[in-house]
């Protein structure tokens, strides 16, 4: 069977879906058999006709031919049967409506308890509302219903209305006025009342009598669903195991038949009532097995049965599990690993995967030779093919073809070959959780040896991927339209700019940044050989400029190398990441080389680091390059210059070692002095507190004030200690370089490694929970000094004291718990946001509209600008336009 993937090829489309209640007549009409037998199989194991497994109900075994439609397994859709209920029962799913209707209509004349004059008026209102404001019409109907329910004397016949009581789930009583007597309303009575409610009255309270007469909510005939939706499964032991629905249906039939017998035998009312009640129970649980107030129907093993409502409900239910999200073919999943030699647009696919995933390719005079080769190679040799489809639609499985040569020769235009995935194919690549559209992008296949999917490091941020065991999914689009869209819209390079904030989400990360810094640093001088090597790594083709230094030897600067990849008319000025603290520069004359100046495509000054080329850095040099020179150029830039960045790191070597975070003895002494000073201050504060002279911060208690003050002192101590440590660190120390350029880590991390950890906290407070008055038994009770409350004096390099280790663990645990709790909360929030907004689109008149074409915004975002194309939110960047024209800005 071939699937029709293109909408225009599909013969019938669903235009709309109408909902309603099945009437007894309809149920009988669509039924192929009445179900009367509680036994399902005879001694020979053949299904009994007239049972819930009647063969007429559908084909569930291979080779079987449907006696009704003549189709076989997979093509026979199955057919409904029916059960004639001996006595009517209530459909639980509609109890709320039955209850409302019983209260809203008169017990004697069955009219809606609204005076005739009002009814006529309401009818006019309702009709008008329905045309213009369907939602208001709904509310109006609800109002009319409430009013009818409140009426205690029927305005039509003057009958006094008793209170109706619903005893959950399905029993109704009429309560007499003195509240003493309760008369049970059995389904027959309810049904007969409902039958007399006029259609016009029902319309007023929002019911559609054509599609849903209220008496149909009381079941007299029960449809038996086809066996295809409740197939029995054959266990390995040869024992047949029935579906939960089948079990429930058998229960219903059994009770129903018993009831019929008893009625015809004239059994006492009591017995009949009991059986009737039992029938009601089974029918109730058949519809919904989680109705409050009654025990759920159980399987023999004690597991609650999964009946109709349970099949639809919830995350794994029909709606969310099978209809909104579907399982797909042509997909693969495996571990990911990095490959800096791929393009950002590419994905490395293991040969073993490529041999399973296929692309249908139509045979043409231009590809016939190639496809013949694939067919000859067969399913086991890459690049081969797995299936061939003849113009008649016959599918040939190449695994079982002995004469592949013959098949290859019979190929002709019009045939389709399902060939292996090969280099240059487009696929979709995805990492869960798919939180934004960049979580699924189009990649171009590179079939590689190995067992993992390979990807370029710069695409890690949009996927939020790392390589500590992450797995990713891959999907192969099967139609020409899908492939075209994937190439034009989904390709990674089209997603360098994020629609979230109008800046690049893809850019340099980690080593790329370190490398860029090393390359463009003033200290880097490159010989001819060095330059050649870097340019070769970057696949540069073209002239090499004049060397910056001619004598004694020719030397090129790294900035010259970087400039070779910049467009010739590119101007840019901006601060780099280094430009902070005492290395800060605000202008061109920069001693620290931390102000970037690019004029006419030449990097004249400044080092390239995170602020210039990093990912998630809006208004950076890289951002303007992408915006002004297009995504093709941006891809090329990343596939060339970025490789030179990596290459220079490889040439020079770049590691972090223990020495990088070691500070001299005198520095340690200095830090300890700072800590001692802070401890003294705290002792003073505590003393003040104990003497009761501590001045509280307005609106806080003295205790709170003390805590706040102590925390302030400790935080300050940590910061100054960090500054001391930073002062002793070598400027070209690799760890420090990484922190300063923004490649990885920050100054705080270095402080914690070199100087001290500082205060550990849980819920923003110092750690105090644990034993009474103390978090750990190593301190005295009620010691509120820094050490007893989780201040860590040691650094990671020095090593933590045992007590400190426990405090650190407490703080670390909080972080883990926090993440776990947050993901579920934010996940649900995002689901709601998506669900509320997913129908919105921009129309051709630039308005934002909802699914029903109602207008939400007259101009999208008040200026009609796409955030992705904006420059960090600005519709147009005027300063940048000026800079581009005159080469500078204020």
């Amino acid at each position, binding site marked *: 069977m071939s699937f029709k993937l293109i909408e225009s090829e599909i013969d019938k489309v669903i235009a709309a879906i109408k909902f309603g209640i099945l009437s007894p007549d309809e149920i009988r009409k669509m039924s192929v058999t009445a179900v009367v037998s509680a036994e399902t199989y005879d001694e020979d194991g053949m299904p009994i006709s007239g049972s819930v497994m009647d063969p007429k109900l559908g084909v569930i075994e291979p080779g079987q031919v449907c006696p009704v439609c003549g189709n076989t397994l997979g093509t026979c859709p199955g057919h409904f049967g029916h059960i004639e209920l001996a006595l009517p029962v209530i459909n639980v799913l509609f109890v709320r409506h039955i209850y409302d209707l019983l209260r809203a209509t008169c017990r004697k004349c069955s009219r809606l308890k609204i005076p005739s004059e009002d009814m006529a008026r309401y009818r006019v209102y309702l009709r008008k509302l329905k045309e213009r404001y369907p939602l208001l019409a709904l509310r109006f109907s609800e109002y009319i219903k409430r009013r009818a329910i409140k009426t205690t004397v029927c305005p039509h016949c003057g009958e006094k209305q008793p209170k109706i009581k619903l005893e959950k789930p399905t029993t109704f009583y009429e309560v007499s006025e003195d509240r003493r007597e309760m008369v049970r309303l059995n389904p027959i009575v309810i049904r007969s009342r409902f039958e007399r409610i006029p259609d016009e009255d029902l319309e007023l309270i929002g019911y559609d009598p054509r599609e849903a007469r209220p008496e149909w909510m009381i079941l007299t005939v029960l449809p038996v669903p086809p066996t295809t939706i409740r197939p029995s499964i054959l266990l390995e032991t040869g024992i047949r195991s029935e579906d939960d629905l089948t079990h429930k249906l058998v229960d219903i039939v059994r009770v129903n038949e018993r009831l019929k017998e008893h009625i015809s035998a004239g059994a006492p009312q009591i017995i009949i009532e009991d059986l009737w009640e039992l029938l009601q129970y089974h029918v109730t649980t058949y519809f919904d097995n989680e109705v409050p107030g009654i025990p759920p129907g159980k399987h023999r093993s004690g597991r609650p049965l999964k009946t109709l409502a349970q099949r639809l409900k919830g995350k794994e239910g029909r709606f969310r599990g099978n*209809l909104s999200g579907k399982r797909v073919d042509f997909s693969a999943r495996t571990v990911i690993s990095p490959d800096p030699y791929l393009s950002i647009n590419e994905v490395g696919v293991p040969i073993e995967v490529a041999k399973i995933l296929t692309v249908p390719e139509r045979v043409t005079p231009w590809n016939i030779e190639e496809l013949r080769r694939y067919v000859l190679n067969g399913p086991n040799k890459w690049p081969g093919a797995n299936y061939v489809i003849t113009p008649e639609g016959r599918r040939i499985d190449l695994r079982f073809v002995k004469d592949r040569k013959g098949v290859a020769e019979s190929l002709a235009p019009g045939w389709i070959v399902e060939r292996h995935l090969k280099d240059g194919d487009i696929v979709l690549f995805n990492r869960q959780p798919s939180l934004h559209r960049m979580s699924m992008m189009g990649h171009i296949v590179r079939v590689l040896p190995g067992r993992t999917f390979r990807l370029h490091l710069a695409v890690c941020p949009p996927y939020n991927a790392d390589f500590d065991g992450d797995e990713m999914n891959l999907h192969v689009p099967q139609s020409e339209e899908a492939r075209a869209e994937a190439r034009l819209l989904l390709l990674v390079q089209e997603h360098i700019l994020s629609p979230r904030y109008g800046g690049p989400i893809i850019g340099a990360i980690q080593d790329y940044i370190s490398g860029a810094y090393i390359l463009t640093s003033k200290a880097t001088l490159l010989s001819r050989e060095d330059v050649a090597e870097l340019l070769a790594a970057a696949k540069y083709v073209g002239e090499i400029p004049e060397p910056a230094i001619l004598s004694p030897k020719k030397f090129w600067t790294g900035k010259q190398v970087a400039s070779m990849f910049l467009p010739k008319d590119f101007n840019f000025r901006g601060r780099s990441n280094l430009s902070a603290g005492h290395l800060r520069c605000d202008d061109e004359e920069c001693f620290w080389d931390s102000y970037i100046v690019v004029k006419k495509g030449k990097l004249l000054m400044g080092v390239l680091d995170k602020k210039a080329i990093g990912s998630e850095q809006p208004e950076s040099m890289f951002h303007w390059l992408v915006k002004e020179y297009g995504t093709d150029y941006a891809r090329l830039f990343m596939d060339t210059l970025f490789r030179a960045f990596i290459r220079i790191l490889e040439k020079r070597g770049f590691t972090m070692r223990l020495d990088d975070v070691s500070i001299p003895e005198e520095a340690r002494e200095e830090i300890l002095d700072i800590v001692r000073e802070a401890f003294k201050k705290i002792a003073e504060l505590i003393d003040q507190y104990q003497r009761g002279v501590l001045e509280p911060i307005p609106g806080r208690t003295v205790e709170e004030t003390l805590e706040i003050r102590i925390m302030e002192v400790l935080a300050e101590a940590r910061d100054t200690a960090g500054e001391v440590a930073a002062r002793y660190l070598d400027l070209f120390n690799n760890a420090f370089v990484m922190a300063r350029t923004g490649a990885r880590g920050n100054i705080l991390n270095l402080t914690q490694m070199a100087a001290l950890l500082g205060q550990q906290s849980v819920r923003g407070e110092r750690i105090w929970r644990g034993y009474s008055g103390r978090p750990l038994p190593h301190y005295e009770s009620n010691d509120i000094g820094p050490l007893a409350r989780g201040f860590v004096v040691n650094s990671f390099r020095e090593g933590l004291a045992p007590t400190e280790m426990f405090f650190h663990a407490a703080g670390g645990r909080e972080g883990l718990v926090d993440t776990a709790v947050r993901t579920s909360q934010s996940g649900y929030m995002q689901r709601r946001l998506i669900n509320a907004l997913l129908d919105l689109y921009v129309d051709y008149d630039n308005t934002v509209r909802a699914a029903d074409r109602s207008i939400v915004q007259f101009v*999208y975002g008040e200026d009609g600008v796409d955030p992705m194309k904006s420059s960090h939110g600005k519709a147009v960047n005027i300063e940048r336009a000026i800079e581009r024209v005159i080469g500078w800005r204020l």
Partner: protein
Amino acid sequence: MSGEEYLSQEEVLKIVDERLSGVLPLRIVQEVKDTVTKYRLTREELHKILDLIVEEYFENTVDPGEAVGAVAAQSIGEPSTQMTLRTFHYAGVRELNVTLGLPRLIELVDAKKTPSTPLMFVYLTDEYKRSREKAIEVARKIEMTLIENVAKGIDVDLLSNSIIVELDEVMLRDKGVTVEMVKKTLEKLRSKKAKVEISPENPNSIIITFEEPLDISKLEKLRERILKMKIKGVKGIKRVIIQHRGDEYVLICDGSNLPAVFKIPGVNYRRTRSNNIKETEEVLGIEAARALLIEEIMDVLEEQGLDVDIRHVMLVADMMTRTGTVKQIGRHGVSGEKGSVLAKAAFEITIKQLTDAAVRGEVDPLQGVAENVIVGKYIPVGTARVRLIYNPLEQLPRRTDGGK
């Protein structure tokens, strides 16, 4: 005229007006004027710049069909995974704890009736805003003061059948309450016939003498009632903090009650704002609620250091407010009022949606995204929205056999 000479300010403005007004949104034209006049430009340069600006603007507009809703939802939802759960004390005001981060964001999209930490920024009129004394004067009128806030102790004297409220002099001064005011408040103690007088021995003590003998069993309740009596201030405002911002004093109130605060003289009701969306909607209207919603969501995101374009937030706010009342993002609001049965069933409360639809004989016209995913059709956004209206090739064969 040579293009080498620098243009005068007037000439620049004239050229900008000629080229841009009517072409670009007014706000952008004004921005261009403000920026360009800071530079000395030649005619040629200016034209080049304006060319770039016009070109960029039209290049940057949204494409028809773009699923802006989904993008907005993702743009707010994705960074929310990076937010912290904790609440922080407010920047600059360490006296107040304010809910921030994910809990606050959820509160906002939930359109909760009252935020977990209601807050008001009360701005003052010109005559009050410059002086600290005048600001304190207003603050005292706003801050809700109960007997318990100024009482040092409350004693029951069964012998004389009276209750003695002893007041704390420091607190009285701090809250700007006189003993006389407390006395007046206590006189309102209805249902009990009692005499309220200032103690002859102690000017900071008030004696309430009851005519009927005190019921011991109800004493505790009575004590509670006395303590909770309001002396002055606005209901719900637990604390007022005076802050100097720029060149004026601003009152930051713990608690929110716009209608009551607006009535107090000295309050600039034009600038005063609350963080309570529902209250703002009731008092200032739906547009104010929308603006506040945008501001509050942006504030939460910015405080967490998350960069989200304001257009996404505006779309969420517009969706929440477009019916004229603030609607929650979720089944009791925006999602619950969708036209499609299938979309609602796929979101939450599946069974009820289906039975209600059946009873009403509803028709799902399959116009939205979720419904079309369910039935397996193309979703009506993006490239799939593009339809061929007239296909001449398709018409031809039909006409030939139309004669049959």
